[in-house]
């Protein structure tokens, strides 16, 4: 098994209370299923959409946004999968696609390359 990180980018945040609840329930169901199949190493954390950016030799500090709103990373999860193909396949169940978001699937580098 190899490790992968899912980076959740963009996706709708608002909506009516009912729609938000439906969206949340879909996420919880998806996470639960992934967990039950043994693919979740760490459920991860949500990230605030704004923070600070420290950059350059001068270590200049600026406010976000760091990217277009639709590309901002809203959270991550640590996944276990056979290979990149499987990790990609598993990501396709993510409810973020229903609200115009994206999942970036990145293999964690291994020592014994």
């Amino acid at each position, binding site marked *: 098994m190899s490790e992968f990180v899912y980076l959740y980018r963009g996706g709708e*945040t608002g909506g009516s*209370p*009912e729609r938000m*609840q439906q969206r949340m329930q879909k996420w919880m169901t998806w996470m639960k299923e992934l967990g039950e199949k043994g693919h979740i190493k760490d*459920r991860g954390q*949500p990230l605030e959409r704004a923070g600070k950016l420290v950059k350059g030799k001068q270590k200049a500090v600026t406010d976000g946004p760091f990217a277009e709103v639709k590309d901002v990373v809203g*959270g991550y999860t640590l996944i276990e999968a056979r290979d990149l193909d499987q990790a990609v396949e598993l990501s396709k169940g993510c409810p973020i696609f229903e609200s115009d978001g994206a999942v970036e699937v990145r293999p964690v580098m291994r020592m014994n390359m």
Partner: protein
Amino acid sequence: MTDASEHLFRREAGRIVATLTRIFGVHNLALAEDVMQDAFCRALEMWKFRGMPENPSAWLMAAAKNRALDALRRERTARTFAPELGRLIDSEWTLAPGVAELFASEAIKDDQLRMMFSCCHPRLPEEAQVALILNILCGFSIDEVASAFVSSHAAIEKRIVRAKKTLAQSKDLFDVTAAAEFSARLPAVHRALYLLFNEGYHGASPETAVRAELCREAMRLAEVLLECRSAVTPATYALAAMMCLHAARLPARVDESGNLNPFLLQDRSQWNRQLIEEGLRLLEHSATGSELTAYHVEAAIASIHARAPRAEETDWGAIVSLYDTLMSISPSPIVALNRAIAVAQKNGPERGLEEIQSIAGSDRLTAYPFYPAALGELEFRRGNQAIAREHFRAALALARNPAERRFLNQRVSACDQR
């Protein structure tokens, strides 16, 4: 009601906006809604990863409190807030503990009540009051209200925006401790909940799920009334009784394929016994004092149906006389039509048809499919298939949703078969 957390967000949205509006002042209703939205977004993000907390309602309220503090800090110079907030807002020392106090469970107890009474502002037309209650207190979005009322997004948005403007201009939320004003506005609140319930029960929305939700929301708000001592009047009991007794029949109204079951042919074993018991208990409580409202009479009619184990055992005589009473307190062509149908059950279709023909203001029923459908039914029963068929066809042209259309189509073909 499969899960206790079903519609949790929607329900909590109403409670939270009601509380935030008290703290911010009614003129800042829009800010209260933004802060609620923000709190919910955070809940959604957190719970996605961490799962639901043990007490999600408390979590949401706490998130709202923190977002409210942020908003107060950010906006304290730009806006004026509710007078209750007073000088708390001037200093960071007093702000956080002061706001915490305003969020204490004792303080938020009456917020929904206060908002309900505020939404029933006398300057608002009834349909605007109901739309406002759904939007603010029940957490329905504009689209959800529009689909419940089978109306366009634009029309409902206009109605709600206008109503909110009136509400925001009213300066203060309704004072639920002012006894005289309270009892003066209570009937308007009853009426709004009654309309909300009826929209769910009789409304034209084709989606049964939406309609059951409207009934449930009306019942939930009636419960809020029953929890407040000054709102517990015979009329409140009667209204709640009527809702329970009608709602008890909802499971039998539509079969598995979404077809309408006519009332007299419903499988009464599907009626919800628990709601019937509750309705009968509430009806008993309503029978105090001298006040007799339309809610009393409607609940009493429903209780006679609820008590009859089979349609054939219905006491139609009692029902007709209750309709007579209802006609004397709140006459309407619909009540008269229902009365005529009861007369037909008691004395035969000819008498029923005579009653229908003599309905005053029956021109107000021309868009109501069950007016020609009732004529068709009674003609059918006395053997006039051809005339019945015409009536059913007229009803079909007025049908408001696929279920009504299917039902009336069946009645048309029944006429052809005989």
